Every structure is written in C-alpha cells, then in structure tokens.
C-alpha cells in the first residue's frame, strides 16, 4: 500500500489509455508522455500497460508500507527518498515505511512514477486511466489527494526480478528543451485557411500559455486568417466555425483565428471550430512536457514520417526492454 502524504499539484493514475469509446465522447486519456510512462514500467519489470502516477510540475510525497522497486522518468525533478537523492530513469529499491518526496522540477512538465506491480485501481472500460473532466476511472475519477491510499497490483512481466540500479543509456533519455519542434500532418479543414495563414502556421513561433492541461494546450502567436465564406447552414457565423465535427487527439484548432488549441489525450472529442492539422502521436509526448512560456515551432511532415517516428519510438522501448531483461 502507498499512502499519499502530499498529492503534488495534479497527480493522476494513468495507463496507456482507454481506446474504443471516442464515439461515446470519451477520450482515450492515459499517460500524456507515453514514452516516459512505458520506460518507467520497463525499469521495474512491469508490463507497459501497468498504471503509473503522472505528476504535473510538483510531484507528490508518498510513503510505501512495504519493500518495492520504483522508477521515476519524464520531467527532470529533484526527488528524495528519506533525504537521499533518487536518480531519474533508474530503478530504485524502496524499503518498508520509507517516504519519497518530490522537490524542484528542472526541465519538462510531467514525471512518471512506476511501482513494481503497477498502481491498482478498479478497471473502467478496460483501462485504469483517470479522466478527470467527467470524473471517470483512476482513483475515484480525480487527482490524488492527501490521505489517499493506493494499492499495488501484479502487472509484472513473468520471470522479471525486482532490483535497483537498472537504468537506460543517456541517449534514450529525452531532453525537454524550452524551444521545441512539433511535427504536424497538415490536413483536416486546413483548406479553410488562407495560403498565407498556412505558411504562418509552419513558419512562426507559438508560445505555450498557462492554459495548458491534459485536455489541451493553448498557444499564443500570430493570428491565422480563414478564407471568407458565406456561413454554411448550422455552422455559425464566425469564419473559424464549422458544423460541429470530431476532433482527433493531437488536432490543432484556431477559434476565431486568434489562439491555437492543441488537443491532448483528455481531448474533447468534438466541437465547432475548424481543425487545421494533427500533431503526430509521438510528438504528443514532447508537447506534454512543454510549459509556459516554452516556444513551439510546427513542422509539416507526411504520414510516412509520422508512422516511421512511431515505429522508432516503439523500437527504442523494445531495445530498452531487452537490455533490462538481459
């Protein structure tokens, strides 16, 4: 059992998500940075779909009531176990009644805590992930609170043995720069933008605002102009309005042309603003590690590049898994 002494700013239980319910208005949720989540699990011998704790900016203080192994990945934080610094991206033995404490965050926005066996919460529609906006899944559908207790599950890889000091090569640890390139497959309703607005989208910097959470990131920058047109029946009068349609996870919308909203894994599944492109799935990990006032540049890529980047991430996690199990 794990006792939450202090919850941190916004800590939720997340796994790899809840696919299959988008048409019911239920987004996939799951770890925003899937790479960091997966690697944390791999380091403690968990299955990759085991639930971790996703921490935002300020992580929690946790007391473990029995011997276990943990790993912390993602945003670089100062973490202490009974006053001793805990390295990131490395498995760590925790003894009974020891307390883990997060202090300062250096780079990135979200850290992941994997515990051997995974965090155990009731499964909802095939997933342990928390979707806070509707109060679904995870630990009572909400972020962790002081005094909560969490159970540990049994989502381990067969024949893996728990031990500390398992790490990943530096080359597999992402840096979380404050200026980042985010790859986008152009399309969706981007035919509604003027040619110069399309050019601006891929050539000017956008700044992450403080309105950035698991649902989406608002970015400020050069306004984008839509082609004038008579409002189609049912769409609404603003040129950025459309007859409400589905929003892909990762899609970028531009309400009134003034501000970009990039949807993440707790996306609203649809709405009435034109979408102008979609962030490739791999780069959702990177965007989720950005924070205000980081600067984003969008780079147009093909579907082939998006699929190749996804395969590359997968092979990295596979390689790390092989090394850990060896």
């Amino acid at each position: 059992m794990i006792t939450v002494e202090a919850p941190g700013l916004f800590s939720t239980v997340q796994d790899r998500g809840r696919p299959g319910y988008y048409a019911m208005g239920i987004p996939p949720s799951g770890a925003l940075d899937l790479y960091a989540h997966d690697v944390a699990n791999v380091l403690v011998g968990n299955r990759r779909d085991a639930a971790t704790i996703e921490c935002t900016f300020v992580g929690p203080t946790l007391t473990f009531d029995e011997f276990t192994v943990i790993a912390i990945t993602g945003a670089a934080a100062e973490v202490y176990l009974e006053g001793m610094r805990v390295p990131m991206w490395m498995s760590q033995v925790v003894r009974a009644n020891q307390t883990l404490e997060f202090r300062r965050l250096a780079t990135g926005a979200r850290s992941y805590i994997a515990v051997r066996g995974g965090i155990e919460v009731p499964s909802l529609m095939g997933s342990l992930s928390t979707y806070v906006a509707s109060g679904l899944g995870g630990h009572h559908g909400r972020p962790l609170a002081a005094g909560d207790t969490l159970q540990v599950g049994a989502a381990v890889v067969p024949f893996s043995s728990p031990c500390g000091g398992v790490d990943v090569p530096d080359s597999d640890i992402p840096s979380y720069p404050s200026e980042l390139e985010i790859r986008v497959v152009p399309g969706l309703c981007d035919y509604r933008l003027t040619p110069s607005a399309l050019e601006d989208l891929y050539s000017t910097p956008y700044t992450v605002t403080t309105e950035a959470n698991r649902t989406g990131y608002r970015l400020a920058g050069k306004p984008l102009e839509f082609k004038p047109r008579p409002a189609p029946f049912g769409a609404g009068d603003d040129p950025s309005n459309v007859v409400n349609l589905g929003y892909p996870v990762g899609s970028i919308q531009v309400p009134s042309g003034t501000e970009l909203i990039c949807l993440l894994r707790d996306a609203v599944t649809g709405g009435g603003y034109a979408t102008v492109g979609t962030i490739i799935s791999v780069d959702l990990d990177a965007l989720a590690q950005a924070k205000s006032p980081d600067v984003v540049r969008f780079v147009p890529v093909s579907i082939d590049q998006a699929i190749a980047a996804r395969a590359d991430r997968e092979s990295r996690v596979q390689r790390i898994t092989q090394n850990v199990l060896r």
Partner: protein
Amino acid sequence: MPRLTDGSRFSFGADEFVFVELSDEMSLEQTLRVIAITDALRAASLVGVTDICPAHVSYMLRLDPTLMDPRDVIESLEEAHQCCGQSADLVIQSRLIEIPVFYNDPWTRETVMRFRDRHQSNDMNDLEYCASVNGFSDIQSFIEAHSGNPFIATFIGFMPGNAESYQLVPRKEQLQAPKYLRPRTDTPARALGHGGAFTTVYPVRGAGGFQLLGRAAVPVFDPESRLDDFGGKIVLPRAGDIFKYRPIEVEEYEAIRAEVEEGHYTYTMHETTFDLAAFQKDPPGYNAELLEVLR
C-alpha cells in the same frame, strides 16, 4: 483535401485518425448517410480500427497504425460510401426517448445572468433572447416550438453523454441561436442548451457556450450507471435517438429528481425507426404518428 468518388472530402489526422467530411452544411440527409456508412464500417470489423465516430455531416476513425496503415482504410471507406449512396431511402433504427424538462427553471436563469458580459444581450436571459431572435413575441411560444417537435441525435461527442440534436422540422422552421461570445465557465448539470441549430442536455456541470433554456429532470450521464435504462453504460444517448422534450413544472421536476436519486426512475422510451423520405414528405404528419406512443 482529397475526395472519395462521391465527393466526400477525406484527410488523415496524423498516424491515428482518418477524417471524412460529407458536407460542410447541416442536412439530415447527410447525417443519416453518416450513420449508415459508419454502421457499415462497424459491421465490417476492420482490422486495427479502434473507434468509429459519426458526427453531424462528417465522421472519424481512430486506428492503430501498427495494425492498419491509415491510407489502406480508404478503400473500405469507398466501398461503404458506394453501398450507402441513396440517402433518401434510408431508414435507421432509433429509440424515441421522452426527456422531461423544467423550461425557464431558476437554476439556469441564475447561472446565465452571471455571464451577461459574455452574452449578446445585457438584460435578456437566454430564453428571452432565443425567443426574440427567432421572432417569437414571448418565451411561451418559443418553448412550444422547441418542445412541440422532436429532435434527432446527430452527434454524440464533446464529452460523454453529450448528444447534439437537430429538430425534425423543415429547415425554414429550425430554431437557431448563436453560441455565447465567450463560453461560460459554469453550466448546471442537465441544463438544456441550444446553439446553432442544435439542442443538447449538458451531461455534467462545467463550461459551455450554448444558450440555456431549462433543465432536464433526468440524467444523460451517470458514471455509476444506476438507472436500468442505461443498460450498464455510463451514457444514455446514442446517435439516431429521437428526443421529445416534455415541459414540466417544479412539482413534477422535484418528484422525478427524487425517483432518479433513489435509482428507480424509468425513462419513457420506445424502440422505433426513422424514415427520412416519409418524414420529408409530410413532417407534421410523420411527427404526429411518431409521437403517438407518448400520448
């Protein structure tokens, strides 16, 4: 944006999504075609496709690109569009569900007046504003127009339980209202909202931009799925459901709320079909027949 042979636009939402737009304006013909096409795609059990999401005049697929290259799914879309071509002949399975609504209730009235700075009108509440922009001289006539003819759920989305619905009346009789200039930060749970040509019951308390007309006595979302009519699901509405909003007063509202809270409320609900051609031939006659079971 590339097109299918029937003229529908399609595009890829990066590696996981395919987006298809049949039309850029609302039309019931296209909505029913979307429902038929997405039903056909669901029945085809395409490998790697995890989600099939119909909207008003467009739809989306989500897929696992390691199992199915998003570009390889287009052939199946083309087939589905071919076989669901004649929208006028479409008949869909549906449910007729009565939603008791306390129009002009005190909770939404109080809420909307807190947000006049984000609204088109400084002094009118949302119901008065909707009546006015639709040419009604009083709110009662607007409520009669809104509750007199049923609505069909044409887009399930935004959040779980949200079902944007389009009234079964000819286009020139559609009630229309703009969305708020800037969305409210608060909406009571179960508020009845109208925006563009669409009505919805807000599933949970939260932000929103539709004009608020009243409050439903019954839920459309329940994370614990306590009412039998949810069939073990956490949401009530499905695409193609037909909703009839029945005006109620405070006494009945409170009585229904108590039944819901105790977990034994039963929705007035009937299995039915919706036949677009028959509806279009005689909307008032069709609706009268459809609603007969509610009398």
